[in-house]
């Protein structure tokens, strides 16, 4: 049962992610190697909000085109850009303007010319059919009220033979109704 409409859910999530601030790197340090984090701007490390390290399973190759669904402040987008190199390209997509701005700033700080950060919905990806080799996502699919739609869009933008690698949260047992109705729980 859905307790929030699509629009209400997006509004709650946008607001939560727009105001998030952090001066710690506890999330990033839980999932990424120190030498990876050392290559990134501090802001991207401190605003890592994912639940794993999907790039470990994406097996990125130089020259590939990558889409990061719900890129946030950009940690996976930036690491993907380093992995695919100057002959590849990475698109970060996020619906929260503040996160888009942060990701763009972090890419700029690293001098990455192969990164493009777009503002938009993961349920309506602003890219042509069959335009990327790999789709990655980290802790984002669970936030959508239309998960099948997100997956269908990921399928559409992947070229035939393209790969998807995501890290996310799943519930093995339903949470109490009070929690499911909580906007703060939705945003997490």
């Amino acid at each position, binding site marked *: 049962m859905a307790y929030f409409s699509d629009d209400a859910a997006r509004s709650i999530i946008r607001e*939560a*992610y727009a105001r*998030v*601030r*952090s001066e*710690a790197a*506890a*999330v990033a340090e*839980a999932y990424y190697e120190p030498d990876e984090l050392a290559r990134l701007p501090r802001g991207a490390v401190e*605003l890592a*909000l994912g*639940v*794993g*390290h*999907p790039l*470990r*399973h*994406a097996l990125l190759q130089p020259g590939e085109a990558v889409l990061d669904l719900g890129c946030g402040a950009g940690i996976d987008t930036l690491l993907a850009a380093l992995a695919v190199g100057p002959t590849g390209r990475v698109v970060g997509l996020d619906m929260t303007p503040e996160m888009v701005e942060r990701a763009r700033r972090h890419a700029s700080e690293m001098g990455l010319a192969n990164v493009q950060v777009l503002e938009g919905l993961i349920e309506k990806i602003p890219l042509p*059919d069959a335009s990327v080799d790999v789709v990655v996502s980290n802790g984002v*699919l669970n936030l959508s009220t239309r*998960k*099948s739609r997100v*997956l*269908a869009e990921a*399928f*559409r933008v*992947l*070229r*035939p*033979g*393209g*790969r*998807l*690698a*995501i*890290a*996310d*949260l*799943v*519930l*093995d*047992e339903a*949470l*109490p109704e*009070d*929690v499911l109705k*909580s906007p*703060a*729980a939705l*945003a*997490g």
Partner: protein
Amino acid sequence: MLLKKFFNVGFEGIAVLERRGCGLEDLERYPLFAPQFLDFLRKAIPSHRHAEIASAVAITARRPAFSSPKED
């Protein structure tokens, strides 16, 4: 349930490569969650589930080499 959604849109080679419990201690790392909200979760969720509220998974899949998107 989630894996079925991958299958239904046409992905193949769907695999769960990691699965680990995610509990209240893990949530404390996230700046998204205020201490008051974590207190609310402690009260609202039975204590036997505090160490594992959800599972963090890594899933990979592939679009078949010869495929077109399914219609909505």
